[in-house]
């Protein structure tokens, strides 16, 4: 395996991310670099689909580390995130090894000697062989440095968050039967949150914080040009401008970057040359996923071009993002 990479400056990191087809702003590159330097987890927050998960993938690619992903959901607990004993396998082994056990124990003179002997063999059944490694433990015990992505932490319960604290600050896990397992290499940890609930102060304290918002017109243009190079620059600009103006409307779900990309791909697939009303009519559902949003956008698009009066229906004061 090629040696993993370490960056010496934010500029270097930014170019490396660029090679992974991820366009990072200076802020993202700087914070990412700090996270590497300080060995601290990085907590990224922002609306859905602005590339939080993508950042983790890109950094894994750029550093040539393996990406281990833990998707959080309500009810996620230690057995699914950390480790579990493989009971079925243990049972099977005891059944199959019964004869051998008999043999070992039959030589014993009395009960306590037999018990002692059995105790000596105990380690066989509580060894790494029977330990089912879940993402967190895998990241800690991995031979090679890894990138650990804890995705959508806000979906997990508050208890799970508390449990994460030990792992994130010390990078070690205690398994009662085996003792404390410490990290071979400190993984690069990235947590993402869609902010559906407030995270605890304790967790935030242990992390660096990065807020990723919707990109500016130029940034989004760059992303579209990079990922969908088949689309003509003129079309790309028109499309991005439309998406940006849709975002300023009061929609139930604003289109994200990934949806812009899907749309751009759809436009390429349909071989559209101009962004006319027919094309829009047929492809708008790629961008907007709620019927009411679609209707609203159509109404706005069908109006004669009497200047950019987007503000109608859109409330500029209502923040799309809550914290």
């Amino acid at each position, binding site marked *: 395996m090629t040696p993993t990479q370490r960056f010496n400056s*934010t500029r270097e990191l930014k170019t490396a991310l660029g090679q992974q087809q991820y366009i990072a702003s*200076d*802020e993202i590159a*700087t*914070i990412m*670099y*700090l996270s590497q*330097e*300080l060995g*601290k987890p990085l*907590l990224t*927050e922002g609306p859905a689909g602005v590339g939080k998960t993508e950042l983790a993938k890109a950094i894994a690619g750029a550093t040539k580390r393996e990406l281990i992903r833990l998707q959080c959901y309500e009810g996620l607990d230690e057995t699914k995130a950390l480790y579990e004993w493989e*009971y079925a396998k243990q*049972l099977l082994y005891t059944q199959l090894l019964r004869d051998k056990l008999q043999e070992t124990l039959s030589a014993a003179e009395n009960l306590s000697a037999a018990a002692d002997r059995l105790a000596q063999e105990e380690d066989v059944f509580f060894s790494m062989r029977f330990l089912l490694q879940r993402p967190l433990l895998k990241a800690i015990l991995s031979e090679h440095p890894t990138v650990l992505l804890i995705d959508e932490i806000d979906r997990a*319960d*508050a*208890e799970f968050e508390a449990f994460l604290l030990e792992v994130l600050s010390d990078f070690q896990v205690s398994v009662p039967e085996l003792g404390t397992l410490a990290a071979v290499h400190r993984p690069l940890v990235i947590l993402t949150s869609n*902010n559906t*609930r*407030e995270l*605890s*102060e304790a967790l*935030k*304290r*242990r*992390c*660096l*914080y*990065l*807020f990723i918002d919707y990109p500016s017109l130029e940034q989004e243009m760059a992303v579209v040009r990079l990922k969908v190079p088949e689309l003509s620059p003129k079309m790309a600009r028109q499309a991005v401008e439309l998406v940006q103006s849709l975002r300023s409307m009061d929609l139930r779900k604003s289109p994200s970057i990934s949806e812009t990309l899907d749309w751009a791909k759809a436009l390429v697939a349909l071989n559209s040359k101009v962004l006319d009303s027919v094309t829009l009519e047929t492809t708008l559902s790629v961008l907007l996923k709620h019927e009411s949003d679609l209707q609203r956008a159509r109404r706005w698009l069908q109006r004669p071009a009497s200047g950019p009066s987007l503000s109608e229906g859109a409330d500029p004061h209502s*923040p*799309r*993002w*809550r*914290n």
Partner: protein
Amino acid sequence: MEERIVKFIAALRAAGVRISLAESTDAFRAVDSLGVKDRELFRVSLLSTLVKDASGRPIFEELFPIFFGSSEMPPMLNITEDLTLEEAEMIAQGLRKVNETLRKLVEKLMNGDPLTPDELERLARMVGLNQADDLRYREWMTQRMKKALHFKEVQEALQELANTLAELGMDRERIEQMQKLLQANQSALEDQLRQFAGQRIAENMGERPPEEGLDNLFNRPFNSLSDRDMERLRKEVQRLAAALKTRIALRQKRAKNGQLDAKATIRANIKHGSVPIELRHREHTQKPKLVVICDVSTSMRFCSELMLSLLYALQDQISKTSSFAFIDHLEYISPDFERKSSGEAVAQVLDRIPTGYYNTDLGNSLNDFSKNYLDKIDSRTTLLLVGDGRNNYNNPRLDLFRTIARRSRRAIWLTPEPAIMWGSGDSDMLKYAPDCDTILQASNLAELTTAVDKLLLG
């Protein structure tokens, strides 16, 4: 530099950003590794280590330039440098005409000297800058310092000087050029004052003694709280709701009664040779559902804001909460709480339901509820009514209340009035009381805490 960062952190704290000791250590480590040369890198390293909330960001952006602003302000230009001997003579002559008190500043502007720390200090004392500890006063303080320096008179004096120079026969173009430079110097001086005012105020903020303890606030009645207290209480309520949530979750975890859990049973019975002696059950969590109807009428206004904040916090914690507010009719307010900060959401609700004049009508509101939202109540729902039961002698519609209360798992009434006031005047509290499972009285935060805890118990 370190001292500057420490002061910056103190000011951030004073402005309401929560920063722990560990985080400030991180900030120093980050600055160590990235250095302070590149201002943008420096800003990002402080930002990512200190501010962990999108709401803290504007505060950071406001304070950062004050503390680490480009302290090398637009350089003041020395006008006297490239003057011909003749011109210098003329200016000296012109200056002689200028009032004694103003001459110093005019000369300063001519020579392009910024104010010295001593002078700034004197000004600060003069306008009372050392007592200001709110950034809102910044512009005002700047104006006052400008006044103390006689900016306006200086302006006039400069105009006069230009006139004199013209009379003395100086080149017109040359005078205009000089005036422009003087103008630039003046605005640079103004920037210096503004910068200084901001810094001083921010430093004062950092040194402000910490606020009084929360205990006092806990036991103060709702109607004697100031806006600032409210803000702090709202935060406290949020914290409280989170703590309560954890407590419920634990309770539910320990109460295990539900479906058979085959996996866990096998595991538990390994010790019995896989003979299922001990049965294990899946956790049967009955997630609470809550329907809250909140009175926001005039008689309740003093505490309804806090109650609404509590609702907001609960909504965040208990996913199946439906909130309603009423005065004369019912409004479904859960959507208002989505994707908004607590303060905004509460303000929006109170905005949408303006108070009228003696128009509280719970009867009508209950009617609305049973017509449109009765399906929100089932055998798992806890009904919480927040109000004082003062109905302005309208029909209380006890029949409707009884139906709704019976349908629900529990009906709880939360009132700010002590029991002794019930039934007095237009209060229908005593009539509603028999149909409630529990009536909780809360007139300060301590009581509210106990009340909410009881509420979530079942």
